Each structure stands twice: as structure tokens, then as C-alpha cells.
């Protein structure tokens, strides 16, 4: 495999707040190859959307590097970044806020070409028609306005606009979270078709593990600004080796588990700590069912664990060896049963 399309190294994004600096993204590195979908998973406050925005230049990075095809984008001014914009596009979560209500659909899709002074009016019009059909809408819709479309149709329009400049990588920030299940399936299929036909890469930011499981070639789990575990499609799901990944998977309800109780952590009331003031050592330890003394003392590094991928957990070997199992307590809550290794 050749050089990655996008390469992020030690990226840090900080927000200044009244009470000090908040590290929304804390020293993370990520490669995305051509034609690949990498899913960035995490709960609110994990920094997943911030990282996506930093890649397209919507958030300035504090340090680290973001390279697109070997070109450093990190320090570029808006003007200097313009030529690289064409390769890098973004689809947002809210299909209602993603389209300027005062512009026609045709104009919205044409806009990127206008900005980059591409083609004649007639060529642009033809391209808009082609894009609309490409995303499963009809070319006649170009004279209509956003308020005439449903959420799913709007998301298709947003995707058409993102495709206008023939991008290589599209950052999809929760692209289907606001859509109904039946429409969600349509949009996920569209994204998969486009990837197959155009060789697109996606960074798919999502909190929905079932969607991610369906669409991602590679998964990265983020927690409080850090990557805690990564893995390939084939082996990530069956053996979640990081306790946080495991918690996420188990908390996600499934239509296949009719009547099965939902799994909650051992503490039945664990809150996500503030990123302003993350716990010492391992950031997940305050909610982890398996935390030991070492977890409070030193921060675990992201390291390869067997064939499973990477994990940032001190106790991952113990867990992988099966020394900790789950069982039901007297209230029929599922809790970890600790065995001494």
C-alpha cells in the first residue's frame, strides 16, 4: 500500500476558555488511505468532531501536522489552503442547517465551482444536473429551494455539493444521525456507492456503533481527546479489547437482542468527566470496571495488542486472557466478575 492520502501526526486542538485551556484533541495520529472509510467513534465531548473540523481547517491546530498527499496543511492560511480544498470536503450532521435557505439548490451545488472559477455557466449547469442525478435526485430540482426538501433529500444535496470539486476525502460529521432509519439506510448506501465508483475516502465521525460497524473499514475510538483503541473491520468488533470500546458496544441496544437486558457499567451512574480536567493516568479509569492502581498513576500509551489492533490500556493483556468475565448480580444487572489472575 502506498503513502496515505491523509496523515495526521500528534495533532493537538485547544480551546481557550475562561478557566484555562481545554484540550479537545490531545496528541492524536491518524492515517487515511485512498478508498478507505475510517470511523471516528466516541461520546459527546470526546473531540471526534473537533478533529474532523481541524482536518478541513475549520479549527486551528495548536501543534502537530496534518498532511494531505504529503503537503502540510497545518500552518496554512485560508488563502494558501484554497487549492487543497478541492480534495477535502465535509458533510455536516444537520441537513436543515447545511443549506443556505435563500439560495436555490442549483446555486448551492454550483457555488464551489464559482469559488474556484471552474467552467462556463453552461458547463457548470450540466455538472450540477449530473451531480443531482448522481445522488439520486432529479436535475429539474435545481431551481427549487431548500425548504421544499425532506431531511434525507437535503443530505443528498449536501453530498452533491461536497462532490462538486471531485474531492479525495470527505469528512462526514454524523451524516445520518438526524435522519430516520429508512432514510439513513438510503444515505449510507449512497455513500458506499460513491466510494466504490469514485474511490473516495471517508472520515466517518459517528456515535452510532451499528452504523459504524456497517460502513467502516477501520475504527478509531476516541475518549476525552485521546485515541483509546483502533482496529480493522475484520477483527475489531468480535473482540473489543479496550474496556471503553466494550462498554460502548454493550450499551448499544440491538434489534437482535429482543428482551435482553441493557448492560450498564458497574457503577450505574457514571458520568463522562470534563475534558477541562481529565482524570490522572488513564482518562477512562473513573468509569472503568477493571481499573487498578497503575491506571491512576500513569497514562497508558496506544500500542498494538496481538492481532486485534491498537489499545491504550494497562490491563489489556489481563482482559484479553479472559481473566475478567461478565455475569449477573442479584438484581440481574450485568457486572464484571473479577477473578484473580
Amino acid at each position, binding site marked *: 500500500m502506498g503513502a496515505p492520502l491523509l496523515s495526521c501526526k500528534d495533532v493537538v486542538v485547544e480551546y481557550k476558555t475562561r478557566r484555562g485551556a481545554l484540550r479537545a484533541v490531545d496528541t492524536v495520529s491518524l492515517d487515511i488511505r485512498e478508498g478507505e472509510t475510517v470511523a471516528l467513534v466516541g461520546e459527546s465531548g470526546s473531540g471526534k468532531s473537533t478533529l474532523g473540523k481541524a482536518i478541513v481547517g475549520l479549527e486551528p491546530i495548536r501543534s502537530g501536522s496534518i498532511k494531505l498527499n504529503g503537503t502540510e496543511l497545518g500552518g496554512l492560511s485560508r488563502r494558501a489552503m484554497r487549492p487543497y480544498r478541492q480534495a477535502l470536503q465535509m458533510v455536516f450532521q444537520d441537513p436543515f442547517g447545511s443549506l443556505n435557505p435563500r439560495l436555490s439548490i442549483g446555486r448551492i451545488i454550483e457555488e464551489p465551482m464559482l469559488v474556484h472559477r471552474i467552467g462556463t455557466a453552461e458547463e457548470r449547469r450540466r455538472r450540477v444536473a449530473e451531480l443531482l442525478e448522481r445522488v439520486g435526485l432529479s436535475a429539474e430540482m435545481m431551481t427549487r429551494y431548500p425548504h421544499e426538501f425532506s431531511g434525507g433529500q437535503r443530505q443528498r444535496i449536501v453530498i452533491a455539493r461536497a462532490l462538486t470539486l471531485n474531492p479525495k476525502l470527505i469528512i462526514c460529521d454524523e451524516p445520518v444521525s438526524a435522519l430516520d432509519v*429508512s*432514510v439513513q*439506510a*438510503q444515505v449510507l448506501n449512497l455513500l458506499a456507492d460513491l*466510494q466504490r465508483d469514485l474511490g473516495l475516502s471517508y472520515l466517518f465521525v459517528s456515535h452510532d456503533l451499528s452504523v459504524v460497524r456497517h460502513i467502516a473499514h477501520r475504527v478509531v475510538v476516541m475518549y476525552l481527546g485521546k485515541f483509546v483503541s483502533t482496529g480493522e473491520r475484520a477483527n475489531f468488533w468480535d473482540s473489543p479489547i479496550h474496556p471503553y470500546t466494550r462498554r460502548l458496544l454493550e450499551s448499544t441496544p440491538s434489534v*437482535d437482542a429482543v*428482551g435482553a437486558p441493557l448492560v450498564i457499567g458497574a457503577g450505574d451512574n457514571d458520568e463522562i468527566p470534563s475534558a477541562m480536567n481529565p482524570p490522572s493516568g488513564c482518562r477512562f479509569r473513573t468509569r472503568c470496571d477493571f481499573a487498578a492502581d497503575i491506571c491512576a498513576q500513569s497514562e497508558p500509551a496506544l500500542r498494538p495488542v496481538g492481532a486485534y489492533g491498537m489499545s491504550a490500556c494497562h490491563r489489556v493483556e489481563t482482559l484479553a486472557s479472559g481473566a475478567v468475565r461478565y455475569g449477573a448480580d442479584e438484581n440481574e444487572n450485568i457486572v464484571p466478575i473479577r477473578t484473580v489472575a
Partner: protein
Amino acid sequence: MSILKVDSLVTELRIADRHFPVVNDVSFTLEKGETLAIVGESGCGKSMLAMSLLRILPEPLARIGSGRILFDDRDLAEAGVDEMRTIRGKRMSIIFQDPMASLNPVETIGNQIAEMICEHEDISRRDARKKAIELLRMVRLPDAEKRVDEYPHRLSGGMCQRVMIAMALACRPEILIADEPTTALDVTIQAQILALLSNLQSETGAAVILITHNLAIVAQIADRLLVMYAGEIVESGTVASVFGNPRHPYTRQLIDAIPKGTGPIEGEIGRLAEIRGSVPALDQRERGCNFSQRCDCAVARCRTDKPVLKQSSGDHSVACFVAQSEAA
């Protein structure tokens, strides 16, 4: 024993001086202590149905057109404002999707709960506060004694939803309506809130009407479900029978459209089963079955006649000509 019986309820929405039924001829019963899920996609009328039950419709934009809501042999569809006030919050309460927006930002959570209790019970402020702390403990809000004097913005979304649940259960209602109670929350928090809800339900014996678009939640925590499409119930039954053997094409396709959370992973990214088209708008609903335009197995009759909900087996009912003829 059923505690709520909804009979041919029609709720209408007024758009440009025309009335459209957003809830169309809906009938169901709610058994004591059960969790009944009402599922459907946006625009199916599930929230309008919930608001109709409590008579909190945004009048005059929406109103109950006809039908009965029998609660204790009283018809809530006809009940007066004062009567509803004694029922809402005391015997039937609701929690909403956005807990932050449902709480008053300039009042401590303790005061808000206490106020709610004083509204319905003859109790001193002091005792109400004590009871508020008790309730916060019951919903397992950590440090309830301290948190009782916090303002909502100091709490996370999950904690606010706990407070909402405490408030909703303050007067031990017989029916709790939960309208998308966990949609705004993270999955780990969602699991906790749902677990809390079902624990409290078995403690208090309240019946829960769970309104959600998330079929996976329904599969795991509900007893029975109603599937709504374009204002009508298209299928109803126990969770086991509907998920085990979905009869209506809409239910079937809806379940298929959800990416699977378990099972083997194929190497390549497959396609999901999608339901083509979208829910018909209120002014585009025609005589026949509302789903017929999107249905793969629709026959001529589906476009002209409206199927009614008929029992197919046990508690399982379906409103579809094709499914009904298969069963016959």
C-alpha cells in the same frame, strides 16, 4: 387489567385553514405496569399522540378531532381544563427528549421538584424538599443532598434526565409517558437511564408509554409495541412476536434497514435494505394504504381501500391486506 383505553382517536393539525389528521383513528389499550412502545419515524404522529393523551396539544394549531381516551372510565378527550390539571403530573406524567430545555434554568432542581409536589399534595415546603432529596436518591443522582440546590446548567444531560424522571415520578403516577427520553444522550448514559426507568417501573408499578424512533431500544426494554406510519397504527403486538415475525411490510423493511449490531462481518461493505421514497406529506395522503406508494408487495386494492388493524394471532395485529390474506 387495562388502565388506559384509547378508542378511534383522531388528532388534527390545522395548516392554512385546513385540518389534516396527524393521528388517524388510533385505538389501543395500556395494561397496568407494562411498557408499551410507540415506534415510528418522524412525522408518523407518535408525539402528537402522546400530547393528545395528556391534552397538551399546541392548540389551536392541533386539536382532538374525535375519539375517546378512557382513563378510569373518564373520557380525557372531553375532560375540562381543571380536571386535566389534577391528572397531569399526578396520575399521568411525561418526560421529554431534551431534559435541559424542560427544566427552568433559573430555579434550583430541588425547588422545581418541590413545587411540583406542592402542586398536587398538601405538604409543607420543608417536607417537600425532603421528599425531593428522596426522589433524587431514588433516581440515583450522586450526592443528592448537595445537588438538590444546584441549577440545571450545572448538571449533565444524563443528570438532568434523572431529575426529569424524579419529577415525573414524584406523585407516583399510574402512567408515565416517555417521549424519546434518551435520544439526546450518549449510548452509555442512555443505557443507564433506560435501566433506571425499568427499575423504577417495577418498583412503582407504573405503566410506561415509550415513544421512540429507535427500534433497538424497543426490542430490549418494551413489552408490547405499536408501529405507527403516517398517523396510523400499522402493526401491534408483543415485542417477541413483532420482532420475531414482523407482518407488515413497513415493519419488516424498517427492521431490515437498521445496520446489524451483531453477527458476522463481511469483508466488503454491503448495502442496507432501504425503504424507497419518504413518508407522504399530510396533504398527499390518499384513500388507500399510506404505505402503498413505498411498498414492494402492494396490490391494486392497497391503493383504493384502507386496511384496518386486524388481529392475526394472539396479541399480534396488522393493518395490511397482503399480510391478512396470507394469514387467512
